[in-house]
């Protein structure tokens, strides 16, 4: 695999370019269709509120997909991701308006590993709250 980032050019603390990912109700409907996860908490406001949620929430897997883009856009080759995990700590609440919600993601190199790999720790927030915990990717660098 051919990551464009060279192991020798990063160190613990190296920051990856941060990104913001908007998410609207339309985004969630599209993701439901593409992923096959049609749980109504992701598109039906009355249902979501009926089960105690503040409003419709994004699929956790949608947030997970967005967060790793900070890594894949950095290394260019998605095949350079050798491990990726997250904990879903807080829901991303998506109001029914034009702006929806925004997921902000930062990442930095947290550890230099063997075989020219690094561990990248990601921080994903929405409305000032962390929405993912233990969000980590192991990445094969050049």
């Amino acid at each position: 695999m051919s990551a464009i980032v060279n192991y020798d050019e990063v160190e613990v603390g190296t920051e990856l370019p941060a990104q913001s990912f908007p998410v609207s109700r339309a985004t969630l409907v599209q993701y439901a269709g593409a992923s096959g996860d049609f749980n109504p908490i992701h598109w039906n406001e009355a249902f979501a509120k009926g089960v105690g949620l503040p409003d419709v929430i994004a699929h956790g897997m949608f947030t997970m997909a967005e967060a790793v883009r900070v890594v894949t856009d950095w290394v260019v080759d998605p095949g350079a991701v050798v491990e990726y995990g997250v904990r879903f700590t807080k829901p991303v609440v998506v109001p029914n308006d034009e702006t929806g919600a925004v997921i902000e993601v930062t990442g930095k190199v947290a550890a230099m590993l063997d075989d020219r790999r690094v561990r990248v720790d990601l921080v994903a927030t929405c409305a000032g709250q962390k929405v993912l915990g233990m969000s980590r990717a192991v990445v094969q660098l050049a």
Partner: protein
Amino acid sequence: MPLDPAFVGRTYPPTPAYEVGREKIREFAEAVRDANPAYTDREAAKALGHPDVVAPPTFPFVITYRAAGQVVQDPELGLDFSRVVHGDQRFVYNRPVRAGDRLSVTCVIDSIKSLAGNDILSVRGEVADESGEHVVTAYMTLVARAAEGE
């Protein structure tokens, strides 16, 4: 009723092959607004050393979640899916999923724990291609919240 820890280690039969289509990968990449050309342009993927377009890192969940239906709907296990939330998710890749793959998933119950009335179920999905080569392992933890009044 808490889940029975005796189910730890239960292995379900491999699923019928899921054939990964190029347009399915495109549809998924568009849904997550990811314009990386490795997902849609075969030549771009080849330039990175892949035989065909590859799928985004979280795409395997589409296949492993479907496969995990065997577990969450196992009447003997008796999970109340209406109370379930996705606790955590992790993938360990041998290689990226790519167009043309015919993938089969073997689900294994890794652990069952009870914490403050919540059931915590960890399911591992081992994904292999047609030749039997390991492609990716998906680790999923589901939390079944305690029922009202318990």
